[in-house]
C-alpha cells in the first residue's frame, strides 16, 4: 500500500508535538509495510544532512520539500510579526505559504504513485485537498490539534475555515483522541462516523538516564522540582500553573517550578510570576529538546500538564517514560490512555495546588503513580497507532476490497 503523506514539520526541525507524532507514526507505518512518501514544505538550513539523519532509519521513505517557511503553531498575525522581527520578507504571510504548499502538492501528486493521501493538520490540509483533486485518491485528514485548542476557544476565522474545509473534504478523519473527536463533531459539524480515533504512541526506546546537574544540586539543598514542558501559549494553561504555584509555595516554600518551553505568552507568564513574588520559585529554561529535555524530566519530582484544551499531550507520556509521575488537566486527550495520573480541571487551581502538594509530600504516592502510569504510557505504541491507521486505509483503498 502506498501512502502520500503531507506534514509540516519533522524532528529535529520541529517546534512541538506535531513533528514528533508525524515521525513516530511514519516510522511505524513504514515498519508495518506501508510504502510511505513523506512530503514536507522545506526551508531547512542544511537539508541534506538533517534529512539523512532524520530518515536514516525509515526505509522506503522519501522526503519532498517545497520552499515554504517552516513555522507551525502560528497565527497569521504572529507569523507576520515573526517575519518582521526576523527580517524575512517572502510571500507576506502564512496563508501564502500554505497556498504555495498546495500548488507544489499538485505537481507532486501528478508525479507520484499512491493509493491514499494522509495529511497532518490544517497547514497540510490544503496540500492534501490539492493532491486529492488531481489524483482522485481518498484523503485522510489527521487532526493533531484544532484552532479551537490552540486559541483556547477564540479561533482565527480564516484558519478555522481552512481547517474545517480540510476535515469536511476528507474521506476519513483521524483524531488523536476522543476529546478531539467530540470537538470535531460539536464545533466543526463533522459526522462522528467519519472520525477514527488514533491515539498517539510513545517512542519505546530507552530514555537517557542522567539528570540535569543544576536541578540535582538544588534538590540536594532541599528543593523539589515540578516540571512543565511545552509551548507557553494560551492553550497550555501555564498561567493556571502559576496561580496554583502561589498556593503551593504558601505550604511548601522549597518547591521549584521549571518551565521548559517558549511561546507567545512567555513574557506575560514571567511578569505574573514576578508580580506574585514567585521569581525565586520559577526557572524558565527556554525550549528544550532531546537529551537536554530528558535530563530535566529525570530531575523532576512531578510533571504537570495544565492544558486548557489538549488534543493529546505527548509530554505526559514522555514524563512517565522518564519515571516522573504526572498531574494532568482533564481537558487532555492523553487522559484517555493514562488512567494512572492525577487529574484536575485546568481552571481549578486550588485542586491543582492540592494535588501537587500531595505528590510532593508522599513518596508512596509518587512511587505508585509512576509505576502504574509508566505501564499505561508504555502501552501506547506507534505500532498500535499505525495498525489502526492501516485498518482505516484498507476501508478506503479500493484495491484492497
Amino acid at each position, binding site marked *: 500500500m502506498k501512502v502520500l503523506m503531507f506534514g509540516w514539520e519533522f524532528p529535529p526541525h520541529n517546534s512541538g508535538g506535531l513533528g514528533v507524532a508525524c515521525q513516530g507514526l511514519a516510522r511505524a507505518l513504514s515498519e508495518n509495510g506501508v510504502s510511505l512518501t513523506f512530503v514536507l514544505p522545506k526551508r531547512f538550513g542544511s537539508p541534506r544532512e538533517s534529512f539523512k539523519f532524520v530518515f536514516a532509519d525509515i526505509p522506503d521513505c522519501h522526503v519532498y520539500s517545497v520552499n515554504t517557511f517552516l513555522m507551525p503553531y502560528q497565527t497569521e498575525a504572529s507569523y507576520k510579526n515573526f517575519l518582521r522581527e526576523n527580517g524575512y520578507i517572502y510571500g507576506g504571510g502564512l496563508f501564502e505559504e500554505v497556498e504555495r504548499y498546495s500548488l507544489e502538492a499538485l505537481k507532486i501528486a501528478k508525479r507520484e504513485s499512491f493509493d491514499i493521501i494522509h495529511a497532518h493538520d490544517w497547514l497540510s490540509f490544503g496540500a492534501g485537498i490539492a493532491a486529492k483533486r488531481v489524483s482522485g485518491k481518498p484523503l485522510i485528514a489527521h487532526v493533531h490539534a484544532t484552532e479551537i485548542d490552540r486559541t483556547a476557544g477564540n479561533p482565527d476565522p480564516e484558519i478555522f475555515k481552512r481547517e474545517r474545509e480540510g476535515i469536511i473534504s476528507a474521506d476519513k478523519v483521524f483524531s488523536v483522541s476522543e476529546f478531539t473527536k467530540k470537538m470535531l463533531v460539536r464545533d466543526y459539524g463533522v459526522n462522528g462516523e467519519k472520525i477514527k480515533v488514533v491515539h498517539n504512541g510513545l517512542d519505546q526506546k530507552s530514555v537517557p538516564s542522567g539528570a540535569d546537574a543544576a536541578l540535582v544540586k538544588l534538590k540536594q539543598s532541599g528543593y523539589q522540582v515540578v516540571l512543565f514542558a511545552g509551548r507557553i501559549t494560551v492553550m497550555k494553561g501555564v498561567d493556571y500553573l502559576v496561580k496554583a504555584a502561589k498556593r503551593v509555595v504558601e*505550604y511548601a516554600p522549597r518547591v521549584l517550578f521549571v518551565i521548559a518551553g517558549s511561546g507567545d505568552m512567555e513574557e506575560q507568564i514571567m511578569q505574573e510570576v514576578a508580580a506574585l513574588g514567585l521569581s525565586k520559585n520559577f526557572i524558565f529554561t527556554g525550549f528544550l529538546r532531546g537529551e537536554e529535555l530528558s535530563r530535566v524530566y529525570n530531575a523532576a519530582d512531578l510533571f504537570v500538564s495544565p492544558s486548557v484544551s489538549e488534543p493529546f499531550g505527548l509530554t505526559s507520556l514522555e514524563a512517565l517514560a522518564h519515571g516522573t509521575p504526572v498531574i494532568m488537566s482533564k481537558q487532555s486527550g492523553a487522559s484517555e490512555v493514562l488512567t494512572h495520573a*492525577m*487529574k484536575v480541571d485546568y481552571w481549578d487551581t*486550588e485542586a491543582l495546588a492540592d*494535588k501537587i502538594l500531595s505528590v510532593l509530600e*508522599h513518596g508512596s504516592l509518587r512511587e*505508585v*503513580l509512576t509505576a502504574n502510569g509508566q505501564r499505561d504510557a508504555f502501552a501506547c505504541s506507534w505500532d498500535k497507532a499505525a495498525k489502526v491507521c492501516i485498518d482505516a486505509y484498507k476501508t478506503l483503498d479500493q484495491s484492497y476490497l
Partner: protein
Amino acid sequence: MTICFYLHVHQPHRIRHYRHSSIGRRDYFDETEELETNNKRVLQKIVEKSYIPTNRVLLSLLERHPEFRLSLSITGTVVEQLEQHAPEALESFVALTETGKVEIVSETYHHSLSFFYSLSEFEAQVELHAKMVKRLFGQRPSAFRNTELAYNNDLGRWAGRRGYKAVLIEGWDYVLGDRSPNFLYHPPGEPNVKLLLKNYRLSDDIAFRFSENTWEGWPLTVEKFASWASRINGNGDLVDLFMDYETFGEHQWEDTGIFDFLSSLPGELLKHPDNNFMTVSEAASKYPSRGELDVPHVLTWADTERDLSAWRGNAIQEDALSRLYELEARVFAARDPVLIDTWRRLTTSDHFYYMCTKWFNDGDVHAYFSPYESPYDAFSYYMNVLKDLELRITAKNA
C-alpha cells in the same frame, strides 16, 4: 441439610474531599454537597433502595415461614448513621430480631482491619460492637466475623480464647483442598470453635451473577437455585449463603427481580423435606467439626485473590495504614473521646479500599467502586485528614 443465610450490613463514614487548605479548618465526614462523599445522601439512597424494602421482605418471610432463620452482622458505623438519618430503617432491623429468629453476629464496630495492626484496638472495637448489639438488639453474640471475613489461624485462636462458638470464613478451594465447604471445621488446637465456610459458588450466584445476562445460569429462578442447593443433601451438613446485605436492591436493583427471588426462596428451599434453616450459632451447635482447617495466611471473601490485597496491596495503602496506626498511642494519650472516635472512624477498611489501584486500569474503571475520582485522590484526602488529626492531638496534648 441446613441453610445458613447470613447478610452483612455496613456503610462507612466517607471523608470529604479534604484538601491541604481544609487542614485546621474543617471536619472530615460532613460533606453536604451533592457528592458521593455525602454520607447522609448515600445512606438515604441505600435505605430507600435496599434496607427498607429488603427488611419488609425478610420480616414477611419470618412471619410466613416459622422455620426461616437469618443471621445478620451490622457495623457500628452504619448504625450510627441510621440512628442519625434514618431511625425508621434501624427500627426495621430491630423488628427482624424481635421475631427471635435472627442472630446478630459479632465483629469490629468500625469495620476495621485492626486485628492485623493492633490487638488491643481490635478487642476494644469488638467490645464496642457488643455493647451496641446489646443496647439495640438485646443479644450477646456468640459467632464472629472479621471485616471482609479476613481470617487466619491467629484469629481462630483468638476466637477460642474469647469463647466464640463460631467464626464465619470464606470456603476457598485453596484452603480446603479436596474438602467440602459444606461441613464444619475448626482452627488448629481450637476444637470448640466451629468454622462456617461460605459456599461462594451458590452465594455469588445470587450476589454477583443474579442479573448477569451473559451467565449461563441466567435468568436465575428460585426453582433452579433451590435445586442446585438441594443437591448438597447427602454430601454436606450445611450450605452457607453469605453475602452483603446491599445485594438486595443496591447491587442488584429492584427491576432485576431480586426481591421476588428473595421473597420466594425460603419457601422453595423448604419444599425439599431434608432442608431446613438455622442461624450460624445454631448450626455450629448442631453439627460436628470434620477436622482442623489450617489457614496460615490471611484469607478473605474478596476478589479472585481472596486476600487483603484490595486493602493493603500497594505502597499508598501501606503508607496510609502505617501512619494511621502510628497515631494510635498519641490519640489515646490525649484522652479525648471525640478524638478517639474520630481516629476509629478512620480505621474503617473502606478508606483503604478506595486507594486500591489493581482494578483501576484502562477500560475497567467501572470496576473501581469508590466515591472518589481515583485511588490517588482517595489517598491524598485521607492523608490530609491524618495531618489535621495529628494537629488536633498535638493541641490536646499541649
